[in-house]
């Protein structure tokens, strides 16, 4: 565990974290899926969460925007505590964007409509402003010419980039990524990772669940290894890759870095 005062990207480890998780527990029925997760994420920090299937990684980040409910412990996002209070949840969801493994684009709307839906109806911006921002984002992710197509007409990589643009259009403070490249063909993984790396370098706070170790090595500030609902080990990419402490971490890394 690094004791540096700033991360590799210059993010200060002092100061109030933008995400605070204290002793978070969650059960699915009798199954104890999250067993006391403690995590602090600073503004601008890029966090990569990795680990075997079923370790609770996706469940954990889905708790951050209340797509899942935690039963014990506290989660505080941007100073707002996640509770049953609907207003808190709504406020948090405005500031937290999410990119899903299955993209989840709205198939009956064009790319432009997908991206501007949130800004117009949740942020209450007018259509013109929303469309301008949408076009800027489409340029940023590299597909401005697709603006008026339907998701079904795009490739997987293009769809995921639209999904990223859609989340960014809300100008969130935090971006959650739930295995964003796991459903993509190898040729398309690169184009999506490039967008995510650019986003990381621009200073966005990101929580990324992924198996893409190359991405982690390139831009992650902190990595967390999850196994069976607990954080087994954490550290900078150098710590994790060059000097893993726990046996479970070593075992998992040896499997995943094989190919």
């Amino acid at each position, binding site marked *: 565990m690094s004791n540096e005062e700033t991360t590799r990207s210059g993010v200060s480890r002092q100061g109030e974290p933008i995400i605070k998780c204290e002793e978070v527990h969650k059960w699915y029925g009798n199954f104890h899926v999250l067993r006391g997760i403690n995590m602090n994420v600073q503004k601008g920090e890029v966090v990569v969460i990795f680990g075997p299937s079923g370790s609770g990684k996706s469940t954990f980040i889905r708790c951050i925007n209340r797509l899942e409910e935690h039963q014990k412990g506290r989660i505080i996002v941007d100073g707002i505590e996640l509770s049953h209070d609907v207003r808190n949840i709504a406020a948090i969801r405005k500031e937290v964007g999410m990119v899903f493994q*299955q993209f*989840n684009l709205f198939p009956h709307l064009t790319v432009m409509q997908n991206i501007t839906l949130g800004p117009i109806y*949740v942020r209450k911006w007018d259509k013109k402003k929303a469309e301008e921002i949408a076009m800027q984002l489409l340029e940023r992710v590299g597909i401005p010419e697709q603006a008026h197509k339907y998701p079904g007409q795009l490739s997987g990589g293009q769809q995921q980039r639209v999904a990223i643009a859609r989340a960014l259009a809300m100008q969130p403070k935090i971006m959650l990524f739930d295995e964003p490249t796991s459903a993509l063909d190898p040729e398309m993984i690169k184009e999506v990772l490039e967008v995510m790396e650019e986003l990381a370098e621009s200073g966005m706070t990101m929580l990324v669940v992924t198996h893409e170790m190359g991405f982690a090595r390139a831009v992650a500030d902190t990595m967390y290894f999850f196994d069976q609902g607990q954080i087994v080990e954490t550290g900078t990419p150098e710590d994790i890759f060059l000097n893993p402490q726990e046996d479970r971490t070593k075992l998992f890394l040896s499997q995943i870095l094989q190919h």
Partner: protein
Amino acid sequence: MTTLTPTKDILPPPTERITILGWMKKNLFGSIGDTILTIVAGSFLIWLIYAIGNWIFNTAQWAAVTDNLQLYMKGQYPGSEDWRLWLLLFLLGLLVGLSWGIFLKRAEAVGWVLLIIPIVLAIWLFTLGRQSWMYFLFVDALAIVGYFLGKRYPKKLARPTYILILLYMPLVILVVRGFSEDGFMKLVPTNLWGGLLLSLLLAIFGIVFSFPFGVLLALGRQSKLPALKTISVVYIEVIRGVPLITLLFMGQLMLPFFLPAGITIDRVIRATVAIIMFAAAYMAENVRGGLQSIPKGQYEAADALGLSGFQKMIFIVLPQALRAVIPVLVGQFIGLFKDTSLVALVGLLDLLGIARGILANPNYIGRQLEVFAFIALIYWVFSYGMSYGSRRLEIALGVGER
């Protein structure tokens, strides 16, 4: 290692020249078995067509139909007020033409096909010596005028057309019913409404109102609020458990017992409410099927964006759910239109009611086949029209593509 030579040019697929004789030879007379089947089926078909044609033109006595066309079409609606019904038909023709011109990018063959129906009716009425053939041609003329107007001034006419379409149904009620004591726009009490006019009114109001009601019930059934969920479930299961005729009977016969003395509710309204309540329960289950067919990820993406429950339903869930169940819904509507014939059993003179009334007339004893064949044809025309319209709607919405 062998090198692979790339194939030469990209070739078009081999084409078969299809001639009619060739097709017949292959499909109808391909083998002995096929040939025998063709001869047997063909003979049967020819005999059938001859038998039916013979019945239609020679044996059948169509007086029961042709003498009473007015009754079939509008029941006992007073002849002096016919002009109001024609006016509504003219307006309909105009609106259909306008919508075609404004909203459809190119002249769809469908539109022109629709024009045939009034022409066919006009020809038939002409042979019967009725004046009304002119009016049907006028409906077509208005539709054509509307079409060209719509194509010429789409931007200017779009808004008024929308408004007129939305107002059409209330306008129909207002015009059919009337309001004044006497003279212009005289009040026509609902017991005089009948025939196809009544059937269409019942069906259209049933369809238009049961749809949103059904959607609300389906959403209520999905709701997490226990009260809403219970009410929806109980309503759906109770109503689905009884035949429509029992609801109609209850509406017509039992309701007066529950109402305070002196207050009566119009019988047509009672029937309409029963039909709406009945259809809504079935609509709700169909919509629920559609709601369940949407991947959970859609709900999650909407939540992650921060859309409220209402926004999520309107923008994301319902458009996809409804699109998925259009074939089922239209099937529901077609069934509903034909179910309106049940009101004949509670004393309302819709198309079926009129038919039975006419058959009770001593002049037309024994003409069941002619009369029922005629009203079956009418039901069929409208049902097939809805079915065809739904297929076009599905194509336009891209159902089954994405």
